[in-house]
């Protein structure tokens, strides 16, 4: 597949046969002509099982319909690169980044030399980091909101208590004031629970989570 001079052939062959890079060749119809052991192993096959089959068969079902467009591109241009989602023999979908070039040796038919890297773990790590960052932002927003609620809530609860303690609440309104204080205390408890949960999320401490907010109960006027 590649013209090698005798002096350089052993190192190049070792690079393909023993290297970690994922290398293959396929014809312009996408039929695999050769696959190096690293690529075959990553897909869960022996190299011999892959040769003669279409590269399309090893793409994830969701992206297979894009394969003809790839073939059109690589037939029209000398090179193509991008991401491909492959599926292993065990059914796991993995993301490879590829950089393929169209070759032609002497008067032989053109073929494609493909070189790929499996970046699945990097992508997953990035996704986890993104999710963690999003969670952190939400948690910080929740804490800031709790803080903003607590100041006016302090004024509401303590002012009502102060009025009651001073005897400034008419007897007919005493029950209403008492209900208002209890409603304020319910808000306080909800905010404290929310803050406790978000602080735990921020510190990534999963054990000993406090009871989850019971929104149904807290919105119940009898609660």
């Amino acid at each position, binding site marked *: 597949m590649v013209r090698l001079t005798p002096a350089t052939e052993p190192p190049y062959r070792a690079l393909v046969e023993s290297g970690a890079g994922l290398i293959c060749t396929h014809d312009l119809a996408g039929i695999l002509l050769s696959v190096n052991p690293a690529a075959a192993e990553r897909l869960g096959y022996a190299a011999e099982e892959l040769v003669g089959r279409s590269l399309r068969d090893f793409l994830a079902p969701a992206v297979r319909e894009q394969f003809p467009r790839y073939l059109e591109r690589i037939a029209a241009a000398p090179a193509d690169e991008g991401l491909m989602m492959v599926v292993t023999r065990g059914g796991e979908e993995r993301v490879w980044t590829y950089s393929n070039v169209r070759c032609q040796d002497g008067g032989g038919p053109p073929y494609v030399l493909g070189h790929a890297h499996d970046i699945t773990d990097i992508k997953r790590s990035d996704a986890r980091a993104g999710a963690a960052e999003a969670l952190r932002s939400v948690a910080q927003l929740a804490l800031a909101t709790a803080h903003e609620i607590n100041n006016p809530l302090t004024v509401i609860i303590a002012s009502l208590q*102060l009025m009651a303690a001073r005897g400034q609440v008419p007897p007919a309104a005493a029950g209403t004031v008492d209900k208002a204080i209890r409603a304020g205390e319910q808000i306080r408890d909800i905010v404290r629970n929310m803050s406790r949960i978000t602080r735990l999320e921020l510190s990534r401490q999963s054990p000993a989570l406090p009871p989850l907010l019971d929104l149904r109960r807290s919105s119940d006027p009898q609660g």
Partner: protein
Amino acid sequence: MNVRELEAEILREEWDHVDTAVDGTDALRLLAEHVYDAIVSDLAMPKLDGRGLYEEVGRRWPTANRRLVFVTGYAEAEEYDEFLRHSGVPVLAKPFTIADLIGAVKTAFSPA
């Protein structure tokens, strides 16, 4: 009415002399002029925060910072966790009740 004004109003129900300061620097000015039985302070304040106030009060009047009580919203408490554990200053979480505030101040009168 803000929380500071409310705190003062509640404390005046129990004690005759209550002054308010807008931030830590203002509090230091008052502390230089009067002797107080208790100091109620927010943790998060402009110019000089509660931690700065604790350290400065301790530097100028070595035992006076034992009469401090911090009032805090939940959000900033984490930032001050280590300091609060180390200093042992009692912390009152907002929103508090009248009884909570008066009880905390009475504790500051007779620090452990």
